[in-house]
């Protein structure tokens, strides 16, 4: 046997401070009416840092700082200068990428190979991409605005953007939010998730290092209540949220009747559809990447495998063999494929739904794998014999759990794939080009990956249909949510 020796990435590359304040007006400040909470390493349950929890007054301070920066500095600043700040931030992210990757893996539990090879390169690329837009907004293709409603012809920023992001890709979601907002000329108040605040706080330091004018980016840490206070703050012109459909609904209600422009990137229950003429080995990789990437904590995860009956046994056999190769464990080990579940609460939800799957009669399988004793872990799992009626076929599990269903014809595959309130992503595996296009036309999903899965790029718009939210992030479409168009 060929056993890989431990290959840990060095932790010493990052200095975590014992405690962090709120980043408001360009400085770290203590909360005035909030408390604090601890951010832990989900792989060990060790406390990483004590983080301030912003109260209503703190949120108000942050919004006012953002407003002042918008009116006095960032709004009036020529686009070419905003661009230079964003380029500068992108460069610093590249320069400090290993430090950020290690911090991300420590706070989130994701494997270092993913934070290093996926998250960080995409974060930097996102800032580079939107940096270039800052002085080209008139070319973004939104056409003329109705002249009676707006003055001038250049697209205008909205003002202050309130942004609330999830814990699954903490820094990447920050980049998806902050880069287009700043490029368009808005200032932001961003709230990272309570279980993963640290990389956003390091990003605040990067803003300082870049000499970004005070108040352009403000980071308020806290839990749901802080987020609610932020999106409901009357001084906010724009709300952008990525997270659960349930919270997205609450936010949509909260901004009803206001001037606030809203974009939402919510849940998903994507079908990954494998036809009998698929390139099987690559399809199996795509299935694995689709559901086990980032522990399945991915809104666009291919959590429903729809496999054509004629090839189902063969695909499942290959899939199981491949799953047996997945290495679950220390997120900082360079050979780890599946890291820790982000929190005890998320682990409980994954367990609950998995138990429901077994109780409802689906057959559960996981490869033999030894899970560490401390921390939050869940073995990669598949359920076969799943029907559309099962909870595990309908509800987002947000974990390394795949529900396998079968189909016989392309039309049946489309019908099953679309039979969900969600519509974020879908996968198609077949060697027949015309079938790919036929399927892609019919799938009600914002991103369709054909013969690939879970690919992201700053130029490529991302976002959902139906209850997966509205608005797009990425590409020139991503500017629309931050402009008065």
């Amino acid at each position: 046997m060929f056993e890989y020796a431990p290959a840990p990435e060095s932790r010493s590359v990052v200095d975590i401070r014992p405690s962090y304040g709120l980043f408001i007006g360009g400085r770290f400040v203590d909360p005035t009416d909030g408390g604090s909470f601890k951010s832990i390493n989900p792989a060990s349950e060790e406390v990483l840092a004590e983080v301030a929890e912003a109260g209503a007054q703190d949120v108000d301070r942050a919004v006012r700082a953002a407003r002042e920066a918008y009116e006095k500095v960032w709004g009036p600043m020529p686009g070419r200068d905003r661009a230079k700040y964003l380029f500068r931030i992108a460069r610093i992210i590249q320069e400090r990428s290993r430090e950020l990757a290690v911090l991300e893996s420590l706070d989130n539990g994701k494997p270092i190979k993913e934070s290093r090879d996926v998250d960080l390169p995409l974060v930097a690329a996102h800032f580079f991409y939107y940096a270039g837009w800052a002085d080209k907004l008139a070319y973004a293709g939104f056409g003329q605005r109705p002249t009676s409603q707006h003055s001038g012809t250049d697209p205008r920023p909205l003002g202050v953007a309130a942004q609330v992001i999830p814990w699954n890709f903490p820094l990447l979601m920050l980049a998806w939010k902050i880069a287009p907002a700043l490029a368009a000329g808005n200032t932001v108040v961003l709230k990272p998730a309570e279980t993963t605040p640290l990389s956003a706080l390091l990003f605040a330091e990067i803003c300082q290092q870049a000499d970004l004018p005070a108040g352009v980016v403000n980071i308020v840490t806290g839990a749901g209540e802080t987020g609610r206070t932020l999106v409901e703050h009357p001084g906010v012109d724009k709300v952008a949220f990525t997270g659960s459909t349930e919270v997205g609904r609450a936010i949509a209600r909260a901004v009803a009747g206001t001037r606030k422009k809203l974009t939402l990137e919510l849940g998903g229950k994507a079908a990954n559809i494998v036809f009998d003429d698929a390139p099987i080995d690559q399809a199996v990789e795509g299935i694995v990447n689709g559901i086990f990437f980032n522990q399945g904590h991915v809104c666009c995860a291919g959590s429903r495998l729809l496999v054509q009956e004629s090839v189902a046994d063969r695909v499942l056999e290959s899939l199981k063999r491949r799953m047996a190769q997945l290495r679950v464990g220390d997120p900082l080990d360079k050979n780890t494929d599946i890291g820790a579940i982000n929190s005890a609460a998320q682990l409980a939800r994954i367990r609950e739904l998995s138990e429901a799957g077994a109780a409802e009669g689906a057959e559960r399988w996981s490869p033999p794998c030894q899970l560490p004793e401390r921390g939050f872990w869940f073995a990669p799992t598949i359920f076969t014999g799943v029907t559309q009626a099962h909870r595990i076929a309908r509800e987002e599990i947000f974990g390394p759990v795949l529900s396998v269903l079968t189909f016989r014809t392309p039309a049946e595959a489309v019908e099953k794939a679309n039979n969900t309130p969600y519509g974020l992503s879908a996968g198609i595996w077949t060697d027949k080009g015309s079938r790919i296009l036929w399927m892609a036309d019919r799938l009600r999903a914002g991103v369709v990956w054909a013969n690939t899965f879970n690919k992201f790029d700053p130029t490529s718009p991302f976002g959902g249909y139906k209850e997966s939210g509205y608005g797009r992030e990425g590409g020139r479409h991503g500017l629309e949510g931050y402009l008065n168009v």
Partner: protein
Amino acid sequence: MSERVAVRKTYKLFIGGKFPRSESGRSYLVQDANVALSSRKDARDAVVAARAAAKGWAGATAYNRGQILYRVAEMLEGRREQFVALGVSDEEVYAAVDRWVWYAGWSDKLPQVYGGANPVAGPYFNLSAPEPTGVVAVVAPEAPALLGLVSVVAPAIVTGNTVVVAASPSAPLAAVTLAEVLATSDLPGGVVNILTGRLSETVPTLAAHMDVNAIDLTGVTDPDLAADLEVRAAENLKRVLRPVPAEYDWYADPGITRMTSLLETKTVWHPKGV
């Protein structure tokens, strides 16, 4: 010889390409006519009709949709006098005709302007294209009755959505007459469904309906009602277009926002290899 007794028109609803009375059997007197007073069930029937038409209309070629919208303009031009008789000015009718023509031309251009290839950093073909959101509930502006209605319906349907429109309660006759134009323009039944009556009866039903994908609140003038409808719409995360200000100029260039707000962008990836 006695004077000829005129044959009066019954103003009915327009649902699924047909002109039914309200299932409630009610009507209300407005603009010197008895106009159908839609019920919640009429609203529901209209959604069913709109949903039934959605697949075919979205699947029609852009060229075909453009042809049909242009045909609407032709028919409207020919019926100008009917609208003038309802008190609509010549100027408004012409503007409405021109607006159909303007949107007709967008059918096969918007996907080019609003979509396209994305230069991703990898060996992938990557294309974004707009698709219709689905079934859209529309509250037409109170006035101008014809131009306002056309200005909210045309941008929704040109891209392949189907609509359920709540017509101006105070001036519904132009809407019903427009339905007669639509019915003779090769527009498939159910693509546009028109409800007359009180907004308070039909619109909350449409806003809460789980099989409606978007709602355009343009004609809602009461801010509290607008907020309430938006709250209802959140239940299934409908796309929401908020009311326009009272001073909104319906004769101005409308831009593309009304179309793009009712579109979903779908992005398709595929590897490039041999």
